[in-house]
């Protein structure tokens, strides 16, 4: 007979997964509408439904109790702490922005539009689940839902073989690395006998003393890294990133470069901090003795940044350039993870929020110019400043923010990350990141230079509709606002730990 408190706790748990439920409801509704109405005329309807679903998913969060690190629900499959509390609305915003971007730009035509919205909602739900879960099984399931659906999203444009090729590469690469990660999970399960992270963390602390157990732990960490570094597109598992980002339709690329990547980093925090680090009460943690994974990660971070920046110098296709730039930013974010401290975690989350706006902004402009008649190549941007000043000024602001120049949010994000690394006295990484900023200046400025300083080679008129301008404005305001006065976000982010 199921114990009383068990049912009661589960029923109560249901209220915690309110957002996911609402999203599922929205998906079902869109499916229904898709079946009933001939889909090629009602594009705006699906957008409204999807945005309403995403917005609705955020509502139940306010009624829930004060988040606490140990408040687990649904028989401790999930935890309701500050990280979850902030991540769920974050992913909702990511979903909304992607859907608005698909609506505004014509990349995805009406026939596939309903599937696209459904998949976006589903992936968002997967991410929300992943962020909250503290059980290996639940993590794997959420990871896979997010993964598999995003393969589909990449391959959504049936007629365009570039999108097909990207999807193929993504699915093969993704499946293989998540398989490896699963193998790592199994090893860890073998060591600890349970799939709950808390139980495992006690066993790990105990096991790291014995040499042969430590070997098993090292292999487990390696396979973990395979999966996580794949998702966050960091060296050495980044090879899929440029091709998939270039192949996929631009709104989806924007979504991939922010949604799953952020989920990857939050998963990093979920897995590595409880399992392989000690000293939770103090603001500075220590890696479990014997497993010096932070120095490995520091090296990976340095290589990722440098590789991302250097490879981006020669790119002429803007989507590919932004792909490499997102790899470089993954390197910067790893810096935050590497500095095992409260400030480090806060800097990662802060940078993710800032990165969301400026990156989606940049991709939005690329999408708009492509759909308004230009190409993704840099040639169509030459002398664009004179012909489409609004879009170009917006693009310049996003790019300067990506470089990390002061009046914009990117700079503050960089300051947070630098602060985290310097707080932990890893000076060499700070200096490497500093020099990388200079290298990144070069290729970001190539675009700005093309837009403002060079003579136009093509003479087509780029007309950007009002809806696009409004979306750009919505992205510009946080990029500029957070650059000048970011106290509110700082308070929210620091409230978490």
């Amino acid at each position: 007979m199921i114990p009383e408190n068990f049912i009661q706790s589960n029923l109560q748990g249901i209220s915690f997964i309110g957002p996911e439920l609402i999203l599922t409801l929205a998906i079902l509704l869109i499916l229904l509408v898709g079946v009933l109405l001939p889909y090629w005329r009602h594009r705006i309807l699906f957008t409204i439904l999807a945005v309403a679903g995403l917005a609705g998913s955020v509502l139940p969060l306010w009624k829930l109790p004060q988040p606490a690190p140990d408040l687990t629900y649904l028989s401790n499959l999930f935890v309701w702490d500050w990280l979850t509390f902030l991540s769920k609305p974050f992913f909702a915003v990511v979903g909304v922005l992607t859907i608005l971007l698909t609506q505004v730009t014509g990349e995805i035509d009406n026939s596939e539009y309903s599937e696209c919205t459904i998949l976006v909602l589903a992936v968002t739900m997967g991410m929300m689940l992943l962020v909250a879960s503290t059980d290996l099984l639940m993590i794997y399931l959420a990871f896979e839902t997010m993964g598999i659906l995003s393969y589909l999203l990449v391959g959504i444009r049936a007629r365009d073989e570039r999108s097909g090729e990207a999807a193929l590469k993504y699915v093969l690469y993704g499946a293989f690395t998540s398989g490896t990660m699963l193998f790592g999970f199994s090893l860890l399960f073998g060591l600890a006998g349970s799939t709950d992270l808390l139980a495992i963390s006690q066993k790990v602390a105990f096991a790291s003393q014995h040499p042969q157990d430590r070997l098993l732990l090292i292999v487990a960490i390696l396979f973990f890294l395979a999966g996580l570094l794949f998702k966050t597109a960091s060296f050495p598992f980044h090879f899929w990133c440029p091709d998939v980002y270039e192949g996929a339709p631009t709104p989806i690329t924007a979504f991939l470069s922010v949604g799953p990547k952020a989920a990857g980093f939050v998963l990093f925090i979920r897995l590595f901090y409880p399992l392989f680090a000690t000293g939770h009460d103090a603001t500075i943690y220590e890696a479990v003795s014997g497993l010096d994974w932070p120095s490995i990660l520091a090296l990976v971070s340095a290589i990722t940044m440098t590789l991302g920046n250097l490879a981006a110098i020669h790119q002429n296709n803007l989507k590919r350039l932004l792909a490499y730039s997102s790899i470089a930013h993954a390197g910067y974010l790893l810096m935050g993870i590497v500095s095992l401290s409260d400030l480090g975690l806060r800097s990662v989350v802060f940078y993710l929020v800032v990165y969301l706006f400026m990156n989606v902004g940049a991709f939005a402009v690329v999408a708009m110019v492509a759909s308004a008649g230009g190409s993704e190549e840099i040639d169509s941007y030459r002398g664009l400043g004179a012909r489409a000043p609004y879009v170009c000024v917006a693009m310049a602001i996003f790019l300067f923010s990506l470089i990390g120049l002061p009046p914009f949010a990117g700079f503050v994000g960089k300051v947070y990350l630098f602060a985290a690394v310097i707080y932990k006295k890893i000076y060499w990484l700070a200096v490497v990141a500093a020099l990388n900023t200079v290298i990144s200046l070069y290729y970001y400025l190539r675009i700005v230079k093309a837009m403002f300083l060079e003579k136009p080679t093509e003479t087509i008129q780029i007309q950007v509709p009002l809806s696009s301008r409004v979306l750009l404005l919505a992205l510009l305001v946080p990029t500029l606002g957070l650059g000048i006065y970011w106290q509110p976000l700082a308070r929210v982010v620091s409230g978490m730990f």
Partner: protein
Amino acid sequence: MQYSLPSFLIVSSLLFCLGMYTVLTRRNAIGILMGIELVLNGAGLNFVAFSRFLEPSQTTNLLSGQIFTLFIIAVAAAEVAVALAIVLSLYSRMKSIDVEDFKNLRG
């Protein structure tokens, strides 16, 4: 006849390595998918083996390993389904599922 835990681990590792080998050497997309399946099954076997051989004191609840494997099988199926869908859509247009032909996204 009593089988000890290490033998299972050896088999699962073998499965894992074979899967990895297949993924690396096959030029055919479907072949690669099979390799991935092997890797997933290797992991599943691992879970079952650990669940079976670990004493009750070491594990909080006995059957979590088996349940995990069930889910793995389900997810693997979904994954293959999606992968095949993508490969089919590619085949219908490119008339080939040889992985070598898809390399115009590069640089």
